[in-house]
């Protein structure tokens, strides 16, 4: 592992990797428009941009997964054309993807072996795996099967797998998106050590605070173009956000006249077996949500959030009616339509295919949830004018941008479709709104509109339950926050108590009462 240190410890003037005028088109859409970037050894270089800004396209080109239409790549000053990722790896380029590619039923060592191009024996490889993992403080048991591991541990496998190839240049795609704050801190220690060894890291993120903390230089992309190159340590989070978005990002605020009233959503000891073998069993979930209150549920994805949404919405029924109570009416056994008639409204995480039928018009998607109550259906016949009116109202109130009055849902951008889906429910004037990942994959402008709408809805007296993986979002809008872990819900913390540290510990599975954080051993 010390090979690099002796190789070229002084940062030479030639950048390790350069892209010059890199352009990639998909049909009429220009994903990357003449992008220049240069990354030197011993640097952590941030690649910033909103969803759809072109970050993924750029790193895929650097890793040889796609061919640029024009422009060139240079490696240590030499022009290169990459036929595929194998060639990139041979040069010393490694990448850790946001979505892991691991076989659940194989062990750690077997997974690593599958990902390596090498010809060494399995035994030698296992020994080297252990050595690399120890050297970087990434504890891993090579013999454990992947399905038993947490998300953080799975990411370690991916990182160790890449480190075993001894890369000079490492690409990390939103590595902290799935980590608790404590796990993220551990990762930063590793990354700083890699930098000290003279390696270059290209770090994709949209978490600005962590970029300021970690990175030496930054390239900002917006709508496929490079809009800025800067030193993030000299910038503020607000100025970085401005570069990413292009305009000032509005801050959300509550009216301050919030009146906490009677309980509107009560969950009593909800237990539910998973529908399929990889699902999560819900255990002893109880919560009480009052009118005028926003209740946040934090947690790493896959800890039972989807199952909880299904049980609360009525997509799945529970035997005991009293398990879910909406406005005083026991409804665990009632269908989603009946719960909507009681004044509940729901926004699932997945916009396309769950929240909307992608290839149907917006008016039909208004009918999708609007048929339960209201004036859209008379004696079995659909009032097409009423569905169009609902589209127009959502368009106007939530500034939904679209090419025509009633397009197909799939033709809207993520942010605009999410504004429509949230607006569709809020305009029904719900007593209880249950929303999963309200701003996932949404641009900053739309995210601000949606968060403000949730605050306004609570101001108007509704009870709002928000599940999100984005801690900053929950801390910004929620009055109380609880954490889901392995199908259980922690006791809620008030906004004042809910620090990132405490929430992070809960997300990692320790209870607040424990004084010892479970991860201490590794770092």
């Amino acid at each position, binding site marked *: 592992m010390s090979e690099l240190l002796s190789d070229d410890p002084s940062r030479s003037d030639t950048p390790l990797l350069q892209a010059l005028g890199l352009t990639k088109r998909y049909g009429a859409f220009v994903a990357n428009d003449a992008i220049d970037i240069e990354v030197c050894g011993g640097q952590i270089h941030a690649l910033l941009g909103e969803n759809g800004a072109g970050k993924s396209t750029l790193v895929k080109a650097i890793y040889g997964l796609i061919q640029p239409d024009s422009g060139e790549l240079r490696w240590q000053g030499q022009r290169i*054309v990459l036929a595929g990722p194998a060639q990139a790896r041979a040069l010393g380029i490694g990448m850790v993807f946001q979505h892991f590619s691991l076989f659940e039923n194989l062990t750690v060592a077997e997974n690593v072996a599958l990902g390596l191009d090498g010809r060494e024996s399995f035994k030698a490889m296992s020994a080297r795996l252990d050595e690399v993992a120890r050297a970087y403080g990434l504890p891993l048991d090579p013999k454990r099967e992947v399905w038993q591991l947490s998300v953080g541990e799975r990411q370690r496998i991916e990182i160790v797998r890449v480190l075993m190839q001894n890369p000079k240049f490492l690409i990390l795609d939103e590595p902290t998106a799935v980590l608790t704050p404590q796990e993220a801190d551990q990762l930063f220690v590793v990354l700083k050590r890699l930098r000290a060894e003279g390696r270059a890291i290209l770090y994709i993120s949209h978490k600005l605070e962590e970029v300021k903390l970690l990175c030496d230089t930054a390239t900002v992309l917006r709508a496929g173009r490079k809009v800025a190159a800067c030193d993030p340590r000299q910038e503020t989070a607000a100025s970085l956000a401005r570069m990413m978005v292009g305009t000032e990002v509005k801050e959300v605020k509550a009216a301050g006249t919030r009146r906490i009233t009677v309980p509107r959503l009560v969950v009593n000891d909800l237990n539910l077996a998973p529908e399929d073998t990889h699902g999560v069993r819900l255990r002893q979930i109880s919560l009480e949500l009052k009118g005028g209150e926003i209740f946040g549920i934090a947690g790493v994805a896959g800890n039972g959030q989807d199952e909880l949404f299904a049980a609360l919405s009525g997509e799945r029924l529970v035997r005991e009616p009293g398990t879910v109570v909406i406005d005083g009416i026991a409804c665990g056994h009632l269908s989603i339509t009946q719960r909507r008639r009681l004044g509940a409204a*729901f926004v699932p995480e997945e916009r396309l295919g769950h929240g909307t039928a992608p290839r*149907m018009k917006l008016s039909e998607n208004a*009918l999708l949830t609007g048929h339960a109550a209201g004036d859209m259906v008379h004696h079995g016949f659909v009032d097409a004018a009423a569905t169009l009116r609902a589209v127009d109202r959502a368009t106007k109130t939530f500034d939904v941008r679209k090419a025509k009055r009633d397009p197909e849902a799939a033709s809207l951008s993520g942010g605009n479709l999410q504004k429509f889906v949230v607006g569709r429910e809020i305009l029904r004037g719900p007593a209880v709104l249950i929303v999963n990942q309200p701003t996932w994959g949404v641009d900053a402008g739309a995210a601000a509109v949606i968060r403000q709408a949730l605050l306004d809805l609570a101001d108007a007296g509704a009870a709002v339950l928000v599940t999100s993986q984005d801690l900053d979002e929950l801390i910004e809008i929620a009055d109380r926050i609880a954490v889901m872990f392995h199908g259980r819900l922690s006791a809620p913390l008030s906004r004042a108590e809910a620090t990132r540290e405490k929430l992070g510990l809960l997300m990692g599975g320790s209870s607040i009462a424990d004084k010892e954080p479970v991860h201490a051993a590794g770092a």
Partner: protein
Amino acid sequence: MQLVLEKRLEQSRTIALVSPLIAIALTLLTMSILFVLLGKNPLLALGVYFIDPLTDGYSLQEIAVKATPLVMIAIGLSLCYLANAWNIGAEGQLLIGAVAGSWIAVKTQGTDAGHWVLPAMLLAGAVAGALYALIPALCRVKFGASEILTSLMLVYVADLLLDYLVRGPWRDPAGFNFPTTAEFDPVATVPVLIEGGRLHLGSLIALLVVASAFVVLGRTIMGFEIRVVGAAPRAARFAGFNADHLILLTFAISGALAGLAGIIEVAGPIGHLQPGISPGYGFTAIIVAFLGRLNPVGILIAGLFLALTFIGGEQAQITMKIPLDVTKVFQGILLFYVLACDSFILYRFRLVSRQVTHGIG
């Protein structure tokens, strides 16, 4: 330059209308090649197939008679297919409907039963078809059995049941041992619309079915449920629509329409129950449903077009000695092209230029 298939932002309405026409054009082209290979003049053959039947009144009536069961069955199938339920066994449901309706005709034969007989036969045909279609639907909903296989296999069961009945218990004693029932009484017969012609009341019923389907699919919440369950199952569940109920419902409706078509065939143009009452209407209706874009009006047009191929095929056999099986080849090629051309509703061709250099430069 390179030709690439590119996803459209929205479905193209123009292509949705034009694609069946492109499919028909490609089919005609392929058929011409086939005719040449058979040693026939392709222009002459296509003329016999598609032009001649349109030139005399008898053939025009016959087209409507043949289109009647095709359209009725295809409307029912389109509801299934829109809801992602794959009923392939309409032919069997047609036969069972014909058997059930005929049972009333046979039992009232020669009695002084009044005008209730025909309505009762139609009702029995529809109910029996619906119940028969519910067998694969229930197996799918309860046990997860593929409805494609079970509905198809039940066709042969129905076929053999009909065969047994007309050769055994229901055989006409005065029928010289032919496997057929006696001619139905006048009260058990579907009336013709024009004196001395072939066009019968069933064609009006088919038009009524088309109009009802148009209203149900376009204007009612039930039609919406059917479309959402097929297009986006998870969104349908979120909307509170029950996919299992809709599988049962659409199978029941399509079975009822197939059964009704079956008894109308037997009580109308044929006049008695016998083997071979259907030249594969239940299967051809699958092509009609897709050629008509699963749209009621489209199905009406497609049904008339495919009826034309049946009539044209018969005439080509008589005048040009072209085997009748060529009609089936034609229908198969047509379905192939229809499904292929549908890609262009969601995708389009684009010419793009790209320069890719290989190797390290």
